[in-house]
């Protein structure tokens, strides 16, 4: 038998299924404080890196008079119907040779004839400088930095039917020609590096294009080619992207060029050309999507919707959410928002300052569809369009709705949760509650950010989504340059509503951030 500390698994049990509190329940087990699990049941699972047991196996160790519901009810309420055991406790109790392997270690003696090919560079003390943290290097290596170079738009010059099927584009990943062509790594030509980057979307898991486009888009593309010729708009000077370590010395913010000075007629012509330009950028996924330009009041929406979603509903949702991208309560202008609802997801990307009549690109897909490629292409649409993301002087000034959000004491588990966030940097936990609806806002914000305005902001977002065709809010991720703000709906159960609002500052490790958010939502929902 393997003995498992009851306190390590108690959290998985439905507390209201027992007549005793869980701490007293543990003391009344067949072996007080422990569950006993037959070792033979665990052996096969250990090869998969997990240890779980069905309720029926351990049910008899619980005092029957303490159980308020049937065994079937309890089993049905366990996650995936089983109790997950702490693997470390299981492993500790197995004999030392339990995992002894009979197969020999691979014979690698042949490699001793080769010296180690790579030696880390140890700079002499004179040239030594403080090493950048890995996270800092990571931040400097995001795709946004690469996109400071204007992406070439060869699609505009190609007839629509020339779109290459995916199978022909895939081999670009096999060997990036960068290394083969460059005689030296030190000064590899920028053009080659850009070429490599431009081809990389072939690796996307997104649907690849059929060589078919709608007539309207084809026509629009031809128009934009002509328009560009008339304009004679010079290509922006290519900006060489430097290695991460080289970039560290100069923050990107300082490198941002001044917005180009352009005339009003030029802006208008650009505006008219936007749908076709965006269509060209989105060409790789246009087999499933079509671009439409629609006016909603003063807002121009370039909408792209997958066939499962009604185009009108997408435009309406985008228009409903647009004011939240240009909102005074945000610490910085929004460059992109990804909103997931129960019925679909939408990526909103302002192609400039919305209040100055810049269009809003809205790409909507069905629930569960991958969004990363869309986000990237949409961001490229902004940068390729040479429109800037400066803050408007007339941003939407939503009222904060009075003081109907009241501060409440931050519970210890929320404080602990706040301390567990690492990817978001240091965050300050705050809890606010809506007097009228009982909505709770768990705020984990970067120091210096006021919680109340952003709680109002999150509540407004939630309300907007409830009236949206995308369905109730699931998650909202707002990019503000390097900074990110995340809003998640928390399933608090029993009709209670809660939101988690996190971030506001730069996020170094997106993967870790996601894991931390999932964990936080789960823990807050379990309370």
């Amino acid at each position: 038998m393997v003995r498992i500390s009851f306190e390590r698994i108690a959290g998985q049990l439905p507390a209201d299924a027992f007549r005793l509190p869980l701490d007293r329940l543990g003391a009344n087990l067949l072996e007080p404080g422990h569950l006993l699990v037959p070792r033979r049941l665990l052996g096969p699972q250990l090869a998969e890196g997990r240890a779980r047991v069905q309720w029926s196996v351990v049910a008899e160790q619980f005092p029957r008079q303490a159980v308020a519901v049937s065994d079937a009810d309890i089993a049905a309420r366990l996650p995936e119907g089983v109790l997950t055991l702490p693997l470390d406790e299981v492993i500790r109790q197995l004999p030392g040779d339990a995992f002894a392997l009979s197969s020999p270690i691979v014979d690698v003696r042949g490699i001793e004839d080769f010296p180690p090919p790579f030696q880390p560079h140890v700079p002499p003390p004179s040239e030594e400088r403080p090493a950048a943290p890995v996270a800092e290097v990571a931040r400097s290596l995001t795709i946004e930095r690469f996109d400071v170079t204007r992406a070439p738009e060869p699609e505009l010059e190609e007839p629509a039917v020339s779109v290459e099927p995916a199978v022909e584009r895939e081999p670009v990943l096999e060997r990036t020609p960068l290394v083969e062509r460059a005689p030296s790594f030190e000064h590899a030509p920028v053009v080659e590096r850009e070429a490599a980057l431009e081809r990389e979307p072939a690796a996307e898991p997104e649907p690849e294009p059929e060589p078919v486009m709608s007539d309207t888009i084809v026509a629009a593309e031809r128009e934009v080619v002509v328009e560009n010729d008339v304009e004679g708009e010079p290509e922006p000077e290519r900006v060489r992207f430097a290695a991460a370590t080289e970039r560290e010395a100069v923050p990107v913010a300082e490198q941002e060029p001044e917005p180009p000075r352009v005339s009003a007629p030029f802006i208008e012509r650009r505006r008219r050309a936007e749908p076709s330009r965006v269509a060209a950028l989105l060409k790789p996924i246009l087999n499933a999507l079509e671009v439409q330009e629609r006016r909603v009041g003063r807002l121009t929406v370039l909408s792209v919707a997958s066939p499962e979603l009604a185009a009108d509903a997408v435009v309406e949702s985008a228009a409903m959410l647009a004011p939240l991208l240009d909102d005074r309560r945000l610490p910085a202008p929004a460059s992109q928002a990804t909103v997931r609802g129960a019925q679909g997801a939408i990526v909103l990307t302002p192609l400039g300052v919305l209040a100055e009549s810049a269009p809003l690109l809205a790409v909507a897909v069905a629930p569960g569809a991958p969004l990363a490629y869309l986000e990237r292409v949409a961001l490229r649409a902004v940068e390729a369009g040479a429109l800037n993301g400066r803050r408007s002087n007339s941003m939407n000034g939503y009222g904060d709705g009075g003081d109907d959000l009241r501060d409440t004491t931050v519970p210890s588990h929320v404080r602990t949760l706040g301390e567990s966030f690492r990817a978001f940097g240091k965050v300050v936990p705050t809890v606010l509650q809506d007097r009228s609806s009982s909505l709770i806002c768990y705020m984990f914000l970067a120091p210096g950010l006021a919680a109340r305005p952003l709680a109002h902001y999150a509540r407004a977002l939630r309300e907007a989504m409830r009236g949206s065709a995308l369905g109730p809010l699931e998650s909202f991720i707002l990019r503000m340059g390097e900074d990110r703000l995340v809003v998640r709906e928390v399933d608090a159960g029993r009709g209670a509503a809660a939101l988690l609002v996190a971030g506001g500052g730069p996020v170094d490790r997106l993967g870790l951030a996601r894991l931390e958010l999932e964990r936080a939502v789960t823990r807050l929902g379990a309370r």
Partner: protein
Amino acid sequence: MSIINHAEKVINFKVVYYGPGVAGKTANLQYVHKSLPHTNKGNMVSLATGDDRTIFFDFLPVSALAVRGFETRFQLYTVPGQVHYDMTRRLVLRGVDAVVFVADSQYERLPENVESLKNLDENLQRYQSSLDEIPYVIQYNKRDLLNIAPIDYLEYLLNRRARRVPFFEAVAVEGKGVFDTLNTVSRMVLAGEFGDGGKGAR
């Protein structure tokens, strides 16, 4: 499969860092990039985007020693760890010469390690290869954390094929084990390519 440029006397190898999400694949490449002298490395291309931790892949070209008059260059790639980016992983694996499997040592990540290793083998088989044929090593990363599984159990989980492979303990964000891993897998590639033990190496 290595690519040989006879005109320039250069031979290219492709090494892919594979493993579950957030295991430390990118951290490995970042440390290599940070630590190698400029004369031995190109720029690191890191395609991280979106707020879903979507990493398309990372790419870092590095040059190494000369063997039989050929300069050897290694193209280091990572794959996205998330389960649903399998097509990207398959594409990155195409033409791979060797693999570093980066495992997360934490107990709660063990099932994902197992799943990722299976996925690696399945994807290699699509290219008529397998883990029994291709040179690979395993790196048990995050050994500095508290809730980590013992090495003998990790070996039981991930390295119990008929042919066991070299493994390394690592803390990639601090660089521990990073170069041991890279050097070993690179030397395995070289030994496979220059089967006589690389007498021409210098």
